[in-house]
């Protein structure tokens, strides 16, 4: 017979559970994850290379994992900083998921790593939906991408704990309107910090590392409006609904 069954399960419950497990497991061993999101070509790798170099100079144990559809070019660039680096090839997949990240960390992540930087696949749409077990989610945009980028990709910018503007050395040439960019960020994510950087000129370097270390030390991280959960409402994350996602976490009898 035909039956209507209530499920009330968050679609991404499985990823969210994997992310929570990873976050807890890494916290227990003293590692904090920083998830870097941006469109392709916005300068994630260039900035990260400089920040990793700084971490090494300051003797902060860090590691980095970079994801692309193809090529190991980014891992080769990041490895120049001298910190442990690993390339993930997604074989065409447009984003990382928590389970994939966990598998890549197994047997590789150095014991001492205090921070693990994850350079997500260059894409501002899909990676935004997947929690990777990070404590700090950083969304980057270069000055060439237009001031309205946060409005075009509201989910990515709306869920950021920190927004980083890159390539500010060419801001004047491309007539980047900083106040307008900031106003657009504020519209989708009120209160989030916006940091200006230029990897080429060395401007604003160290801020990302500082914010990551603060988060690792337990300093409060910005809570985006989009990430706040209204009471009694499933918000795309795992909750222990009587008949919902929570049930799946336990063996079913």
């Amino acid at each position, binding site marked *: *017979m*035909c*039956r*209507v*069954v*209530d*499920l*009330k*399960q*968050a*679609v*991404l*419950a*499985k*990823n969210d559970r994997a992310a929570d497990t990873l976050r807890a497991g890494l916290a227990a061993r003293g590692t904090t994850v920083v998830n870097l999101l941006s469109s392709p070509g916005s300068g994630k790798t260039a900035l990260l290379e400089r920040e990793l170099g700084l971490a090494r100079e300051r003797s902060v144990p860090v590691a980095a994992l970079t994801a692309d559809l193809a090529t190991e070019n980014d891992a080769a660039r990041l490895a120049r900083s001298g910190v442990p680096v690993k390339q993930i090839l997604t074989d065409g*997949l*447009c*984003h990382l*998921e928590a389970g994939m990240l966990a598998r890549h960390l197994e047997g590789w992540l150095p014991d001492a790593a205090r921070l693990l930087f994850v350079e997500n696949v260059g894409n501002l*749409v*899909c990676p*935004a*939906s*997947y929690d990777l077990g990070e404590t700090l989610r950083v969304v980057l945009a270069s000055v060439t991408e237009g001031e309205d980028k*946060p*409005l*075009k990709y*509201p*989910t*990515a910018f*709306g869920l950021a704990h920190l927004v980083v503007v890159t390539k500010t050395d060419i801001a004047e040439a491309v007539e980047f309107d900083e106040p307008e960019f900031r106003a657009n960020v*504020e*519209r*989708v*994510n*009120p*209160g989030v910090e916006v940091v200006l950087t230029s990897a080429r000129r060395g401007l604003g370097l160290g801020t990302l590392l500082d914010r990551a270390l603060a988060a690792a030390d337990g300093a409060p991280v910005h809570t985006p*409006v*989009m990430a*706040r959960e*209204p009471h009694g*409402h*499933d*918000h*795309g994350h795992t909750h222990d609904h009587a008949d919902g996602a929570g049930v*799946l976490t336990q063996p*079913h009898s």
Partner: protein
Amino acid sequence: MHEMSIAMAVIGQVEEAAERAGDVTAVRSVRLQVGELAGVVPDALSFCFELACAGTVLEGAELVTDTVPGRARCTPCAHEWAVGMPPLLSCPLCDGGATDLLSGRELQIVGVQWEDGRTPVPAAQPIPEER
């Protein structure tokens, strides 16, 4: 486009639920709630869903999507508004700085309609027709 991953997550969860139920022979429809701010395109999701259902107990199942508009409330002044797209998440009245998102981020399987092997049990007492 991550709608294929989303579609496969939906199918996986419905398959698990069907397996737990034990005697599901076919899934007729799956009802989803998709918030305006969930970052998922319902049309792309339907397309992927149809493809990804092939060869599973969900083959031929219809995906019914309920879109949930984004709404927010200002904590200081209690003003409520439709956030729109792109969303406005700071209070348009007082710029109070503390906003609660009431809805719009939903990405949830509400329920499914499926066929099972059980024979309908005749109701013990016929329900009298309502006026």
